[in-house]
């Protein structure tokens, strides 16, 4: 956590406010989701990102629109920051036809081709080889863009992680591996699932330049991601960032959260990305309480509108059930 600490935020006010706004959007959106889940509006599995907002907000705001994003089943934040409309995400959570995947994917499977957002993957490690392939396509076509692949530290235990790291390094592909290390793979702590808990060392063993980042510090995330993405974009091959972060909520709505001490959770909450960042901004006179109130109001309006939109939206007609299994002309 070398980059942690009170140091000046080297950002313009509008850049800083944007980061606050994005983190706030994620936080409030997910709080609403948790409530709606309790109300039965959202079903299936719901994995909340609360506590980890700095990673999505810091990383995705410095990626380019032409870059590709691959994410996990804990991807609401990434989807929102990437620019998928909150209403389309919320409608998807509701299972409505106006959702980004027509209500077929739900929380774990958010996709949006328009913003090159390639999911939304509920198989741990499943996105890594996909990201390698997206980067391979760019590489072969001579397109200088980045594929940012988000995955949890639990995925490091999968064979797919190792195969993907090796392929990307071997072929010098433009992949930015974004490991969101929140310490627990579902209920299993990193030290109980990895013999080598230094994840950067694993990446380094594939000769991939790797850097640990304080995932609770949105500025650190932003700067590390910006630098690494620039190298990847320049053709330097893959880079690996380990964002050390923490989820404040349980793994999913159905998780009694018995595997970690409450004190640990409370300790991490003191480092919550939202309030630590706004505290620093206030200390620098870049941010006032009024700003916060204004952002809160904006975000609240956006989420209220998203919920209203989802509520008012229609279900996909059942007759369309078999649509899009394969291309229409090939269907029979």
């Amino acid at each position, binding site marked *: 956590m070398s980059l942690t600490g009170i140091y000046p935020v080297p950002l313009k006010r509008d850049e800083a406010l944007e980061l606050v706004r994005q983190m706030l959007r994620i936080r409030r959106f997910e709080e609403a989701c948790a409530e709606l889940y309790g109300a039965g509006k959202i*079903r*299936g599995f719901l994995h909340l990102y609360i506590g980890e907002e700095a990673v999505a907000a810091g990383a995705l705001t410095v990626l380019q629109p032409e870059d590709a994003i691959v994410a996990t089943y804990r991807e609401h934040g990434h989807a929102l920051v990437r620019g998928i409309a909150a209403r389309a995400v919320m409608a998807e959570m509701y*299972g409505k036809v106006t959702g980004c995947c027509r209500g077929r*994917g*739900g929380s774990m499977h958010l996709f949006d081709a328009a913003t090159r957002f390639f999911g939304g993957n509920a198989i741990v490690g499943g996105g890594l080889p996909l990201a390698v392939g997206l980067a391979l396509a760019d590489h072969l076509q001579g397109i200088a863009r980045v594929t940012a692949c988000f995955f949890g530290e639990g995925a490091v*235990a999968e*064979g797919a992680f190792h195969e993907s790291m090796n392929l990307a390094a071997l072929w010098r592909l433009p992949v930015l591996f974004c490991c969101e290390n929140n310490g627990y793979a579902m209920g*299993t702590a990193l030290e109980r699932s990895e013999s080598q808990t230094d994840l950067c060392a694993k990446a380094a063993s594939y000769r991939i330049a790797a850097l640990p980042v304080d995932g609770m510090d949105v500025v650190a995330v932003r700067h590390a991601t910006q630098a690494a993405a620039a190298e990847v974009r320049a053709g330097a091959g893959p880079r690996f960032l380990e964002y050390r972060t923490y989820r404040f909520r349980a793994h999913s709505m159905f998780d009694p959260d018995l595997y970690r001490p409450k004190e640990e959770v409370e300790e991490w909450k003191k480092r919550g990305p939202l309030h630590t960042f706004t505290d620093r901004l206030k200390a620098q006179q870049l941010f006032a309480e009024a700003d916060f109130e204004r952002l809160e109001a904006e975000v609240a309006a956006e989420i209220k509108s998203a919920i209203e939109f989802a509520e008012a939206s229609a279900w996909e007609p059942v007759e369309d059930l078999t649509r899009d299994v394969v291309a229409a002309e090939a269907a029979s």
Partner: protein
Amino acid sequence: MSEKLSYREAMREALRSALRRDPRVFLMGEDVGRYGGSYAVSLGLLEEFGAERIRDAPLSELGFVGAGIGAALGGLRPIVEIMTVNFSLLALDQLVNTAAALRHMTGGQLHVPLVVRMATGAGRQLAAQHSHSLEGWYAHVPGLRVLAPATVADARGMLWPALEDPDPVLIFEHAQLYNVEEPASSAVGDVDIRRAHVRRAGRDLTLIAYGGMLPRTLAAAGQLAAEGIDAEVVDLRVLRPLDATTVLESVRRTHRAVIVDEEWRSGSFAAEVSARIMEQAFYDLDAPVARVCAAEVPVPYAKHLEDAALPQLPAIVAAARSVLGARPA
């Protein structure tokens, strides 16, 4: 006494009893220990048996399933839990290329006394990567025994016979069944893991189901009874080796068969059952064999679409009526 036992508890009791009975038995899988199992089946076992025998594994399905095979070769009786059948695809190589093949490939020198448990099936809005029913794929593979306990009694009584089997046994637990309760008194003793079981006797047609489709199929039989149609319900419960005898005996009596299967129709296990009936009871059939299967789509998230994709009670009832023709038999 009308003490109730849930399917989940029955499975836990089966694990507990096996762990107590045979020191070679251990449980291994993702979050089986401290977390208590993703479906809370193994909750509390860590405290009783310790971390060596209730062994949390990293998210390394290929690795720990393969390790289970090795441990079985090494003289133990591993029970490996895979979170869902969708995740088992990551371990398909070890299951098919190693566990199933070893005995035959080595000319009988080696065998793999391994039990693999996993959740299967849809119905909880978990969408296309957590909802599928692929047990028929495994039932395709010689060298495996494939079980699908559909009742609390079977959940309680299948594990020990599976552990006694000298060859690999896969147990598919439909996630919708975990909360099903039956009187505890019904779940005693081992279950014959070679035989299908007639859950309801009837004269007019045979409804054939397994796993998660059994309760729904029994409900359909109840509804048909109200219409004066007397349906027999056969619970396959062993998908491999298929107990064709029980199925055929029933069909030879009723002359009509409807197979209910949560798998996709094409290449489904229902297709295998249907083919057996056609091959071995063709001249006993009084109507074409009917199948009620899932729509051929990845299971969608939205509730109404998921419902539409899965075999539902009205479809089972309608299929039963259709094989009866213009009038009840």
